[in-house]
C-alpha cells in the first residue's frame, strides 16, 4: 500500500518533470536533421521559468472559463498518469479508479476546456483554431475508440495495466497483423492529437494556418506556462500509453524496489528516444497537409484501426 503510493508519486513526478525535456529533445533532434544546431534541450524549462515569472494580461470581457482552463489543461494529463503504466509493470494505488476510456475522457476534458476558452476570448483566430481542433478531434475520436475496444476485447479487460500483458505473452501475439496495424493507427493518432506534421505545424507562427497553437494566443504569463506544460505532458502521456500499453511493457519495473524504479526511468527513456526518432523522421520527411486533406489522413488511420479490429476479432 505505502509502496503503491510511492510508485504512483514517482510516476507523476516522471511525467511532470520530463515532459518539457521530451519537447526539448524533439525540437533539438528536428533541428539536427535539418543540419542546424537548434536550442538546448533544456530550453523548454527556461521558457517555463520565464513565463512563470511574468505578469498576466486577461481581457475584462472573458468569463471564468478563460481563467480556469489553464489549470484543467495542466491537471488532466496528471490524472491520466495515475491510471496508466508509466514506470511499473504491476497495478498501482489508483489503477482501478478508471479504465482506458476513462483516461480518454479525462484527456478530452482538457481539450474541451481549451476549445471553450479559445472561443471565450472573442479573438477570431482563437475561434477558428478551436473549430479546426474540434474537426481533428472528432475525426480522431473513432480511432481512439476502435483501438481501445480492440485491445480490450482481445485482453478481456479495459484496465491498461492488464491489457499490456496480452501482447507480449508470445511472439505470435506481438507480430500478429492486428497488433502491427493497431500500432500504426495509434502512431498516426498521436501525430494528429498533439498537432504534429502532417496534420499541424507545431513551430509555425502564421495564425491563419494554425490548428492547435491558435487556442492559446490570448494567454500570457503563468497561464501560458501551465498550458504549454500541459500540452507537453499530454504528448508524454500519449507516448507512454503507446509504448507501455500498446507496443510492449519491456523495461518497466517488475519488482517493488526503488532501484528497479530508477532502472525503469532509464529504460523507458530509451523507448521514448526511439519513438522521438520515429516522430522526427515523419516530421522531416512529410509536408503539412492542406486542411481538408487532414480528414484523409485520419480516415486512413481509421481504416487501419478497423482492419486491425477485424484481424483480431474475426478469426476462424
Amino acid at each position: 500500500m505505502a509502496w503503491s503510493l510511492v510508485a504512483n508519486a514517482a510516476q507523476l513526478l516522471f511525467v511532470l518533470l520530463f515532459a518539457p525535456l521530451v519537447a526539448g529533445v524533439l525540437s533539438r533532434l528536428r533541428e539536427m536533421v535539418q543540419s542546424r544546431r537548434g536550442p538546448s534541450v533544456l530550453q523548454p524549462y527556461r521558457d517555463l521559468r520565464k513565463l512563470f515569472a511574468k505578469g498576466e494580461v486577461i481581457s475584462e470581457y472573458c468569463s471564468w472559463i478563460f481563467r480556469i482552463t489553464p489549470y484543467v489543461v495542466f491537471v488532466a494529463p496528471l490524472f491520466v498518469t495515475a491510471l496508466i503504466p508509466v514506470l511499473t509493470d504491476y497495478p498501482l494505488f489508483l489503477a482501478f479508479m478508471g479504465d482506458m476510456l476513462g483516461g480518454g475522457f479525462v484527456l478530452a476534458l482538457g481539450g474541451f476546456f481549451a476549445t471553450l476558452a479559445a472561443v471565450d476570448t472573442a479573438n477570431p483566430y482563437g475561434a477558428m483554431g478551436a473549430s479546426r481542433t474540434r474537426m481533428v478531434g472528432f475525426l480522431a475520436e473513432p480511432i481512439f475508440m476502435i483501438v481501445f475496444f480492440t485491445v480490450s476485447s482481445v485482453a478481456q479487460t479495459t484496465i491498461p495495466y492488464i491489457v499490456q500483458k496480452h501482447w507480449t505473452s508470445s511472439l505470435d501475439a506481438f507480430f500478429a497483423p492486428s497488433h502491427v496495424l493497431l500500432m500504426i493507427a495509434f502512431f498516426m493518432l498521436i501525430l494528429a492529437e498533439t498537432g504534429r506534421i502532417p496534420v499541424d505545424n507545431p513551430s509555425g507562427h502564421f495564425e491563419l494556418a494554425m490548428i492547435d497553437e491558435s487556442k492559446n494566443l490570448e494567454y500570457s504569463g503563468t497561464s501560458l506556462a501551465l498550458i504549454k506544460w500541459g500540452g507537453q505532458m499530454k504528448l508524454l502521456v500519449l507516448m507512454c500509453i503507446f509504448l507501455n500499453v500498446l507496443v510492449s511493457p519491456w523495461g518497466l519495473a517488475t519488482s517493488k524496489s526503488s532501484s528497479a524504479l530508477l532502472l525503469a526511468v532509464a529504460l523507458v527513456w530509451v523507448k521514448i528516444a526511439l519513438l522521438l526518432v520515429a516522430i522526427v523522421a515523419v516530421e522531416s520527411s512529410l509536408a503539412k497537409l492542406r486542411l481538408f486533406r487532414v480528414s484523409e489522413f485520419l480516415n486512413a488511420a481509421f481504416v487501419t484501426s478497423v482492419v486491425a479490429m477485424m484481424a483480431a476479432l474475426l478469426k476462424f
Partner: protein
Amino acid sequence: MNLPIASLNGLATGLFLLSAFGSLATRQIQGCVRFFRLQSFALAASIFLLAMGTHVSDLVVVAVVDLALKPLLIPWLLKRYVRGELFRHREIEQLLNIPSSLLIGLFLTLTAYLSAPLLPLPSAAMGQINLPIGLAGLLVGVYTLAVRVEALPQLIGLFGVENAALLIGVAVAPNLPVVADMAFAFDMVVIAVVIGILTRITHERVGSTEIGAMRALKEVGIE
C-alpha cells in the same frame, strides 16, 4: 535456430494489407509505385517464410524471382518507358473521392474476413493469416483497378491483384511447380512493358490515357 515463422509471417502480411490500402489512399502515382514496392517486399518475405515453414525449397526460388522482378525491375521499367506519365501528373484522377474509397475498401476487407472461412480450403499452410488477407488484398486491388481513371494507376491496381493472388496461391498450393510461378512472374513484366509502351504511344497521340475519354478509335494522320 528456431525462428518464429508464423509471427513474422503475420508481420509481413499485415504490411501487405497496409500497402494495399496505401495505394488506394495515395493521390500520387509515385506514391502508388512506392506502396507497390512495399507490398512486393512484404509478399516476398511472406513467401520466404512459408518456404521455411513448409520446407518447400521451390518457394525460395519464387521468393527470389519475386524480389528481383517486382520491387526492382518493374518500377525501373515503368520509369524507363513512361517517365513522363509517371512524373507529369501530381494527382491521380479517380471516380470516387479517397475517404469513400477507403470506406469501401473497409467493407471489402470485412467481406474477405467473413468469407475466407467459407472457402473449401481447410488445410492451406498458414491459411489463418494468408487467406483472409490475400482475399482482402485481391478485392481492394480490383476496386483500385475499377476506381482509377488513368492507365498507370490502373496498372498498379492490377499488380496489386496479382500480388494478392500469389499470396493466396502459395498458401493453398505450396507444391506447385516453379515453372508455373515463374510464368506468372514474367507475365507481370510483359504486362508492364506492353502497357508501358501502349501508354506512351497513346499519350503521344491522344494526349491523355483517361480511359473514359477515349470514345472512338482514331487513326494517325486522319483528323
